[in-house]
């Protein structure tokens, strides 16, 4: 029979009819057999006559639903520190819904399942661990604590199986699993502790100095290489192994990559008391594993350093108050109450370790007041060069120079590094003036300065600093006249003393060279300052009858000066400036006097008058 395309519609029509007829016939047969239960007896006869067969369905091994993996990565980069646990996990499913075990072995040799118990690794294997019986389909965990000895090595292969504990036919999975990804797969790595055998430092050290802590230390690991190690220094024997940080105060740690003998440098604070400070060394490797010997102690010592004074922290001024020049204003004596203020700083703070003052009493510090031409290298606080003219030095006894100092600030605690002091001191009347007055002082190009060197509780003495604001010492012209008996002898009216035989003595009790100006009033019996003598030939001896000079001239000498009442007469006595303080040694000048009693004097009685001695600053050359 051949197929013709052109007859396709005919074919379809015919095929559909056959299909329908066949289907209906089948349906009728089925309904007949079903309704009348055709053949029931025949089938029963056949069943009763066949032999019974038996079949034992064998236990099937559990399988990994989720393969075994390291819960926490253990690798060369992130090894498991010795004495810490490594943990695996997996999900196994048993076809019989039986419990299963997760077994971790060191090789892929088939493990040994056990009836009603946990399986074991092949006898030739190291068994890293086996979980407890775990419900099928749930997560199983197994862990083991690593050690630094066998069977643990630095790198350890592992193979995982899931096994059941079927009572009759326990089975393990056929193919072991070694992890799910690169970061949680076999092998696992054990990191050994670094070794710390010695710990020390190169102290003592100054404040702000650098202290180095040394250690004898290494790391035994070799895979993939020796581990870098770090030395951490704490101020107490307390160290957190979870955070690898000091329990107390951190001091220093290794900051560079080293494989052995780690060290740590510590910059000592700029303000720290001189004392011994505790230090404990802790060694860790780069994986944060600590050395067993951690906590070695190597206390360090901070040196005592001398106190420091800077120039602008020294201030001197005279008794007129802050900023004023120094003055001497006590004729022939000491002028009290000049002031020096200064600040002393100490990097060891203002309070020492025993809670006492870090500084010595200010009266024990080196303090000098000097003319700049002398300098602090001469006027150095030793007292050797004390000179009331130009060098006042705390090295001398207070009976010689009564410097008196007190603290003007308080020490608030070890965080404070300074103390302020104020001192008062006297100056003798002979202290060299440095001002540039109408008469130029020989020292006008200089000034007065102050030097201070702090001394601490350990008697360390700082460098002497000199003030940034020196002051002038002002000229002081001052004189005194000593008592003198001037006896002209017997003089008849109309006669004179013949020579200038009587004397008066002036004393230079200031700090300049002195000349003397003299003037005087007429003498009479009724003289007072307010009521001068009347002009009277018989009862008043005019002032010009008195003559004076610097030597015992003849009364009639033309160079004898005639006393005047209105004009000062200068007598060039050139009394030098005193250089020693006892008044008995002070330079003095003698004036020689003579008088003529006018012949016209007839009135008897007591004659009074007033002579004035005026201090005049001598020319510079005469100081």
């Amino acid at each position, binding site marked *: 029979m051949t197929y013709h395309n052109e007859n396709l519609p005919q074919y379809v029509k015919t095929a559909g009819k056959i299909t329908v007829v066949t289907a209906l016939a089948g349906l009728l047969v089925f309904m007949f057999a079903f309704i009348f239960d055709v053949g029931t007896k025949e089938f029963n006869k056949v069943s009763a006559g066949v032999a019974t067969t038996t079949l034992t369905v064998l236990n099937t091994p559990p399988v990994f639903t989720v393969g075994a993996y390291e819960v926490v990565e253990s690798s060369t980069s992130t090894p498991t520190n010795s004495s810490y646990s490594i943990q695996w996990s997996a999900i196994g499913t048993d076809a019989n819904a039986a419990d299963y075990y997760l077994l971790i072995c060191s090789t892929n040799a088939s493990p040994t399942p056990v009836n009603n118990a946990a399986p074991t690794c092949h006898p030739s294997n190291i068994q890293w661990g086996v979980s407890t019986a775990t419900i099928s389909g749930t997560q199983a965990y197994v862990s083991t604590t690593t050690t630094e000895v066998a069977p643990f090595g630095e790198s350890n292969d592992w193979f995982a199986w899931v096994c059941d504990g079927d009572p009759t036919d326990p089975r393990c999975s056929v193919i072991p699993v070694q992890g799910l990804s690169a970061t949680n797969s076999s092998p696992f790595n054990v990191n050994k502790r670094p070794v710390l055998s010695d710990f020390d430092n190169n102290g003592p050290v100054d404040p702000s100095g650098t202290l180095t802590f040394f250690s004898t230390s290494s790391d035994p690991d070799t895979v993939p290489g020796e581990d870098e190690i770090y030395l951490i220094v704490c101020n107490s024997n307390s160290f957190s192994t979870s955070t690898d940080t000091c329990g107390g105060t951190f001091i220093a740690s290794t900051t560079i990559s080293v494989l052995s003998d780690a060290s740590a440098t510590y910059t000592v604070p700029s303000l720290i008391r001189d004392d011994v400070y505790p230090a404990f060394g802790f060694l860790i490797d780069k994986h944060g594993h600590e050395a067993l010997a951690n906590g070695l102690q190597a206390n360090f010592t901070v040196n005592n350093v001398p106190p420091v004074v800077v120039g*602008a*922290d020294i201030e001197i001024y005279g008794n007129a108050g802050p900023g004023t020049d120094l003055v001497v204003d006590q004729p022939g004596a000491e002028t009290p109450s000049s002031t020096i203020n200064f600040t002393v700083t100490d990097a060891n703070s203002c309070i020492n370790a025993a809670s006492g003052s870090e500084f010595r009493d200010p009266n024990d510090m080196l303090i000098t007041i000097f003319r700049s031409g002398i300098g602090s290298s001469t006027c150095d606080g030793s007292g050797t060069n004390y000179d009331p003219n130009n060098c006042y030095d705390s090295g001398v006894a207070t009976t010689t120079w009564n410097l008196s100092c007190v603290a003007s600030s308080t020490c608030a605690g070890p965080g404070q590094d300074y103390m302020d002091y104020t001192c008062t001191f006297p100056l003798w009347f002979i202290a060299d003036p440095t001002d540039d007055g109408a008469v130029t002082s020989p020292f006008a190009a200089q000034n007065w300065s102050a030097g201070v060197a702090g001394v601490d509780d350990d008697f360390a003495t700082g460098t002497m600093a000199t003030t940034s604001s020196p002051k002038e010492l002002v000229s002081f012209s001052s004189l005194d006249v000593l*008592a003198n*008996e001037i006896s002209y002898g017997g003089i008849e009216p109309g006669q004179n003393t013949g020579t200038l035989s009587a004397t008066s003595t002036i004393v230079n009790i200031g700090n300049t060279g002195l000349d003397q100006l003299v003037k005087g009033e007429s003498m009479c019996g009724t003289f007072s300052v307010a009521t001068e003598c009347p002009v009277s030939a018989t009862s008043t001896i005019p002032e010009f009858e008195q003559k004076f000079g610097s030597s015992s001239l003849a009364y009639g000498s033309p160079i004898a000066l005639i006393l005047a009442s209105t004009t000062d007469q200068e007598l060039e006595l050139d009394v030098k400036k005193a250089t020693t303080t006892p008044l008995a040694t002070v330079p003095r000048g003698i004036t020689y006097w003579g008088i003529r009693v006018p012949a016209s004097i007839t009135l008897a009685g007591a004659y009074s008058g007033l*002579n004035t001695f005026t201090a005049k*600053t001598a020319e510079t050359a005469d100081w």
Partner: protein
Amino acid sequence: MNFLLQKLTLFCFVLSTLFLSVSVDEASAGFGITPPYVKNTSLTRNSVYEQQILLVRSDTSVAQKAEIVVDAPDIEDWIVIAEGSEIKIPQGVQKVPMTVKITVPGDAPFDEYKGSIRIRTLPDDDQVAPGAVSISLGALVDIELSVIDKQIKDFRVRRISAPDLNEGSKFAWLFFPGKIRFSMMIENTGNVNVAPSRVEFRIYDRSGKALLEETENIGRIKKIKPYVTETVVAEIPTRLPAGGYIARYTIYNGDEVKQEGDLSLNILPEGTLQMAGFGFFGLSLSHKVSVLLPIFSLIIAGIYVWHYRRKMKDVSR
């Protein structure tokens, strides 16, 4: 004979009187002055200069008075003694000031002038010991003045100090620096108003080795009148944190360094002292710009909007 006896008696009496009277009294108490001069070589016309002179004595047991006489013929009328020509020195008082005031006339020739002031101490009750030549002590004040036609701008630093200060503070992104109040006692030694032109601080750590900050004063420093001594303050910003430092300061008069030195500087934690720090003017340039720029932008935008609306109003009309 009677006449002869009478004359002899008189002679003896006069002789004895003279013998007594010329003997000098017991030692006088010392007297002095400081300074023994009035000196100013930079006076200008119409300038006023004051100087105080201290009169001192060693014996305070009696009241005295000081008689003042100006002996300066050319300039006598320029000189006034503030306390008058007679200064009382009461019993128990050892020192008294004498203020010399110089007022230079507007037509004073440019020249140098010299003179003196004579001071004489006298008993306050005018009484002198009878039958004796009393001793009066005095002192001479030299006067040396120059009137010049040149301006001199100079000063002397008599005292400096830098009290403790609070560290700077932060507000939002703005940092307001701490304010060093550098106090200077300045003596104007010239003849025009003057102030330090600049104050620089180089701040080091306490050891003086590590330079931490360089800064200088902000704003002008108050000027001081000629011949006057006064304290002025330079305000200097610092951005350093609390701690102890060494400040190396330099005080300038123009290009001239008038004083430099090292000074302790203590910066305390913010809020320790009840003292105001720097405000806007203490901000750094960038911070100032960051504040001003938005303000200026808003102003400009406001002006633009106002101008635009006005323009539109004009168009709609």
